[in-house]
């Protein structure tokens, strides 16, 4: 089915939003880290895993989701959270470690939680997959029509949590959708050196889960496959596994020397930039002009600049805040002792 102009432009705008956000975060990340790179320095310290290149997956899947549909993500979470509709200001403030951030500075870029959007992520590979199963279980127990989605990398498909989760979801016929983003690498280890089957879609059969592999650079392909899976889950017909083949345009994390990449491969993949592919399709159909594209880019840049200004102007949490939030009940005896 051909997608409407409105749908395609929505996807395009979302992909540009994610890319613009990520590329701006990259620039900010290197502040204070030049000429000598020191991971602890600058306004955004710590590891930084960016999503540039994979936008079609987050945009194509999340276009089918409502704010109350749970999503679990990974160490590379920005794209998913933006596509879910986060307040960019609070997200950016969290990345800066500020009091106004989504997690008041306790989480940072890898640990973003937004309960209003039912979104969570974390730094342990595969850690979020069972949470999506649990969210789907809660949905099923309550008889709701929500859907839980878990995003994770092809590297995560080799950890036990993936296999146990798929079996549980199938066994209990849960409203869950599992999205493997096969960007070909888990840090330096290529998929061919980590997985004996060619596609993780083949693994669906082992658990009795319908599974497909799609071109993750083609947002329309992702959108269509995800649409089917989400509808199936909403109808109560059980989980689906989708593997989207894509590519990360930046290193595993910022500062990755990428010595492990065969020469020229990244350049090749960049020729299939998902944003450029969609732009071409839209232009061919007469639905987007160069001026439109520029206007969208400017609008997104302004939004992100606003988020950045908010983050920079926000205060850091006071050092004592480190001692709160271990428990819901702050007056717990153990916490009090530690304060002393």
């Amino acid at each position, binding site marked *: 089915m051909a997608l409407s102009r409105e749908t395609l432009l929505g996807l395009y705008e979302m992909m540009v939003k994610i890319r613009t956000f990520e590329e701006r975060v990259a620039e900010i990340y290197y502040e204070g880290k030049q000429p000598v790179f020191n991971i602890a320095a600058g306004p955004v*310290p710590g*590891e930084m895993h960016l999503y540039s290149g994979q936008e079609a997956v987050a945009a194509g899947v999340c276009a089918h989701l409502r704010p109350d549909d749970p999503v679990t993500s990974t160490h590379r979470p920005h794209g998913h959270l933006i596509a879910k509709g986060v307040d960019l200001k609070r997200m950016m403030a969290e990345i800066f470690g500020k009091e106004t951030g989504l997690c008041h500075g306790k989480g940072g870029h890898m640990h973003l939680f937004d309960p209003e959007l039912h979104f969570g992520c974390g730094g*342990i590979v595969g850690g979020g997959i069972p949470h999506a199963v649990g969210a789907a279980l809660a949905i099923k127990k309550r008889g709701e029509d929500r859907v839980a989605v878990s995003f994770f990398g092809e590297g995560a498909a080799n950890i036990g*949590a993936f296999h146990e989760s798929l079996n549980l979801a199938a066994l209990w016929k849960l409203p869950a959708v599992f999205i493997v983003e096969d960007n070909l690498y888990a840090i330096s280890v290529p998929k061919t050196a980590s997985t004996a089957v060619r596609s993780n879609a083949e693994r669906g059969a082992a658990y009795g889960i319908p599974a497909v592999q799609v071109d993750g650079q083609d947002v329309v392909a992702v959108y269509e496959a995800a649409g089917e899976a989400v509808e199936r889950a909403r109808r109560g017909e059980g989980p689906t596994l989708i593997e989207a083949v894509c590519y990360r345009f930046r290193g595993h994390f910022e500062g990755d020397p990428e*010595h492990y990449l065969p020469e020229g491969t990244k350049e090749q993949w960049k020729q299939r930039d998902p944003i450029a592919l969609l732009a071409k399709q839209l232009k061919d159909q007469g639905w987007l002009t160069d001026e439109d594209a520029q206007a969208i880019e400017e609008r997104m840049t302004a939004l992100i600049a606003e988020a950045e200004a908010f983050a920079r102007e926000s205060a850091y949490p006071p*050092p004592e805040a480190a001692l709160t939030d271990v428990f819901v009940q702050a007056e717990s005896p153990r916490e009090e002792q*530690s304060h002393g």
Partner: protein
Amino acid sequence: MAERLLTTARAIAEAIAQEMERDERVFIMGEDIGAYGGIFGATQGLLEKFGPERVMDTPISEMGFIGAAVGAATEGMRPIAELMFVDFFGVAMDQIFNHMAKIHYMSGGNVNVPMVLMTAIGGGYSDAAQHSQCLYSLFAHTPGIKVVVPSTPYDAKGLMIQAIRDDDPVMYFFHKGIMGLGWMAPNPRATGPVPEEPYTIPFGQADVKREGSDLTILTLSLMVHRSLDAAEQLAEEGISAEVIDLRTLVPLDRATIIESVKKTHRVLIVDEDYKSFGMSGELIAIIAEEALDYLDAPPKRLAVPDVPIPYSRPLEQAVIPSVEGIVQAARELMAE
């Protein structure tokens, strides 16, 4: 001849290479240990030297490959497994706690598990709650695991060779801040003299890194460096601090600890692990059992105050012991 200087990362990689040359049963598995050379450089150059049969990049399957190291060890190999960050132990906890640690005992001493599980620890660079822990106390708590936590390039090499030759399972914890990585905050002590020839450092021998007479600082890993910096400052104030690097928690060198406490009569423990139910409490218990009467003041301890490591810089800096914090605690201890 001038002393040869190496970073801790290179010292570890050299130790592994020399043992792989010496003993063909030694091989190494882990994520990104081949072409990448280990995220923290502890396996740099090994793939080039020994090839992919003995330097194996694994999928992200920690339970699988750490369990496989246990199985290979019981069959007479000498595997080394790298767990990229200690924080990821959770996905392999059963293999570590219930198998690696207990098989020798459960078999009535009939089955050996001669393997090394090496892993990166520590925070201070805003990697937050799931990438900044130390956790050596958790493993020291479990019977059956030897726990090695070096602080210098020299110790790192000697203790790694010892670990590989040891017939028991050894967990070897290197702090990211002592590796001499170009992308971490510079640390002059992360580079130091390391002899080229293989040598071992026996387990259970603490090292007095600085002698002193007024108080004893018991510590290990990166906190040795912070304690030495603090001792320097304290000396200017006329306080003479002895800094003891425990080097191994299991086995623990009780004699050196007790001897020092009997000499200084005051003790401060500096630990980057969580405070409660861990190393600092254990050391104080031992001192209470064996040298209580020698203490002129209650023991003091600095450790992470029972909270996960927060991301935001001011929060993280508030919970990890600092040079200033150590100086302050030592002053307070002297005022008691």
